[in-house]
């Protein structure tokens, strides 16, 4: 199963990178989106996927062992990453909108010219 997921992540990365290399800024944003999802998966996978129990401590128990549950630490990391990606997406979209409004183009190559004085 790890192999399948690893290949899945690799394919996501390939698609993401391909999108990043496009000149259209909309595609670039989609690329960032795909890559952030793929990266979250990598972090999640680093905890291992042999165990897939919910990472809660039972109603009567005082402590739990990791034997049966999914590693909680990567989950915590990924959870904030997901919410942050929401903030970032909104920011990039706003940036893109402003950029398009100001320059009238969505071709990234045009941007290089306004870069230089």
């Amino acid at each position, binding site marked *: 199963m*790890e192999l399948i997921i690893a290949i899945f992540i690799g394919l996501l990365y390939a698609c993401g*990178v391909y*999108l990043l290399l*496009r000149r259209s800024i909309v595609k670039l944003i989609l690329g960032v989106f795909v890559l952030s999802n793929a990266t979250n998966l990598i972090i999640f996978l680093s905890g291992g996927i042999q165990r897939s129990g919910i990472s809660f401590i039972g109603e009567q*128990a005082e*402590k*739990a062992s990791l034997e049966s*549950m999914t590693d909680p630490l990567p989950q915590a990391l990924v959870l904030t990453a997901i919410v942050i990606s929401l903030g970032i997406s909104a920011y990039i979209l706003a940036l893109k909108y402003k950029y398009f409004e100001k320059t009238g183009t969505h071709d990234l*190559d045009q941007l290089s010219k306004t870069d230089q004085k």
Partner: protein
Amino acid sequence: MEQLTVVLTGLIFLMGLMVPFLRRLFKSYTGRILALVPFALFATLTFIFFTLPDETSRLVDTGFGFLPEMGFSFRIDGLSLIFGMMVSGIGGLVLGYSSFYMAKYAGRTKFYFFLVLFMGGMLGLVFADNLMALFIFWEITSITSFFLIGFDHDKEKPRQAAMQALLLTAFGGLCLLFAVIMIGDMAGTYSLSELYTRGFRFGAHSNYYLVFLLIFVAVTTKSAQFPFHFWLPGAMNAPTPVSAYLHSATMVNAGIFLLLRLNPILGGTVVWKTVFVLTGGITMFLGAFYSLGQKDLKRILAFTTISALGTMVLLIGMNSTASIQAALIFFIVHGLYKGGLFMMAGIIDKNTGTRDIDKLAGLLRSMPVTSIAGILALLSMSGLPPMLGFIGKELIYDAKIQMPELSWLVIPLGVAANMIMVAISLWVFYEIFLKPKYKQPVSLKHPEHELPGNFLAGPVALALVGLVLGMFPGWLEDTMSNAMYFIQSETIDVHLSLWHGFNQVLLLSIFTVAMGVVIFLFRKPVGSLVNIIIRWTDQYHLPERFNRLIKNYLSLAGRQTNRIQHGYHRYYLITFFTVTFALVIYQLIRLKGPWIPADEAGPVRMHVVMVLAFSLLAVIFAVFTRSRLSAIVAMGVLGYGISVFYMFYGAVDLAITQFLVETIVMVIFVMVIYHLPHFAKLSDKRTRIRDAVIATGVGVMVTLVVLKARFINLETPVSGFFAQNSFLEGHGRNIVNVILVDFRALDTLGEITVLALAAAGVFTLLRLDLNKKGKKQMKNLVLERIVSLFLYVMVGFAIFLLIRGHNRPGGGFIAGIIAAAGFLLYAIVFGSEAVLKKLHTNPRYIIGTGLLLAFLAAIIPTFSGNPPLTGLWLSMGNIHIGTPLLFDTGVFVLVTGMIVSIITNIMDVLKWNS
């Protein structure tokens, strides 16, 4: 008593930082009030000065360390006392002086701020026992003096002068840092006291020459030695109080101080003697020579300062008992007369509006007090009795005569420099205080008796001290002996007196004065000769050269940057990806071990594979589709697919969060996307193939890394600890939530701050140039009721999730998104204006409140002595209430506020209302 020096020095720093408040409190008295602290320090040091026994140094722990193993103590011995007294005494006078001089300047707060901090830095440098601390204070003086020299920052010249001073002294500071590290490395300690008591001498060490070179650069740049002397005249662009302070007892003398401090460790070698004697000698002569060609009083003083610094470096380089003694006395002499003369120049400038010695005349009559103080200072400068300057010069001559090797060079240079000093003193005296026939006396703006006392106090006090010390030099003997003991590491009894008897030295003095008078008498031809030479050397004008060097360097950097920073986004990425690819693949090949675990691989679950395959198809579709909407929907499929994946693997919170976020992102996407153009085919086929190859490479690389990474576990995962303790210590059954709000709350705090910033970013991006505009509103009472109800249900549900999130799926992030989703729906139906109305406040304040709550939860534990973010709990039976819950509430409020803010902003700007 020694403790008091630490307290007062600390107080100076504190006062410096509080200048903005003090200025408001004391208005125009600020300078005088500020001066009280250095005066108090001066008094303390004077007391120690008279009570410190010979051959003892006191070490006072400040209880303050830069690093755990690098304590920062005050070292109080003869040397630091002498420097400390000069720094604090003249500092106090300069502050009092400034309160009048700067009265009409704008930006006085800034002026006092940097001047007082500079003073603190200088004191720290003088008293530091730790070389690393000494370096830090050294840098503080460089940086604050940059702001002081460039005080008139709206003019180009001061800016340039300040930049030049900073570039040079900061370069020297860098060298000092390296030297300090090397010394610390060689000795195993940074403490001066330890270096002294263990008697380190590095003369024979293999690294000595490198350390020497570094120290040499540090000293010559800071103390304006040839060929780095040129920044000092430029620094005259600073307001006069700054010049009076920087060039009398502080800044430029830091290099002198460093040499004296390091003399026992590094001094006395052949290279030390030769190099410093030559550098000092050349600087001494050149400074004096150039001063002859100047017309501006301040520039004359600047060049004589260079000469004096050269003299001190020369004396320290000679490294005999007599010469070090002479250097110490000369430091005091120079500080006293130069401080006084600069202040005098400032008073004259303020009063007459000019500093040109050709225009000034007859001041003795119109400004008698200033003039007499000035004349006493000039007497000291020319080394005439009964001033302390006389004793200083006699000691210098004595030391030079005693020097065996280079006396043939040193004596003529020294005598020549002193002749010029005599001549220039006479010249200044004659031109500005007397009334030559060919000049009109200048008119005064304020008669002298109208000047405030503290304005005149500086030069008068310094002149009197020079006079009194000249007549009773015995007062200095004990402390001088103490200083000498630590500089030369041997017991030396210092004897000072005005009258040395009739000897070789006195003959030289008489000769010097006579020749000085001769130069003065022939000042016209001498002046024009000097000017011809200066004009000839001006083609090698060093400040210009330096500027050109810097400019060339910058343009080189610019060209290089332009080549690397071409501005094409894709090529940056391609560079980045290919380099990463090469490095990672190289590393992967070197690693041994299996790729696919045979035994511990999880079972293949067909339903998961189906989900993944479906998501992948969606992404591939998104890559090739021309429709924007389809691409977004495809992204949604990917997001939901991954959400389902999390669900299958037991990460409930993750799945919920991903699902919610995905939904909101898609809504935002759809809102914005229709205001953007359609996808266009911009690249040709070849680029597409190239990009595809790169993308495939990266994909393969990532797959390999993911597979490989599973076998590399360098540390034991901490997750076990969380599983063990999240209920017992965090009172929560939802381990993920406990990690977020308790165990790793600091990370979460950072992350929600990022969220707040993202919202602020969206706000500024969209609202920057947006004008308020009218809105039409939709009215549909029934619909409004239903949607309102729905909103309340959503918010209520969110609060429920928030509270139970500690034990079951939920928590601040999820709750925040759900509440926001309620508002989103409301906004879509009624427009953003209605949401704002419903909220009764601006979403920005909600974000702020959330952040505030989280920080509050972080800070509250510190009141009971715990580290920030410690979870504090109040248990009532089965119910536990604690700061982590407050923290989570902060997260909830912030996330809600952020999403609502972003959405209302986007809707407003895109006119999504109605």
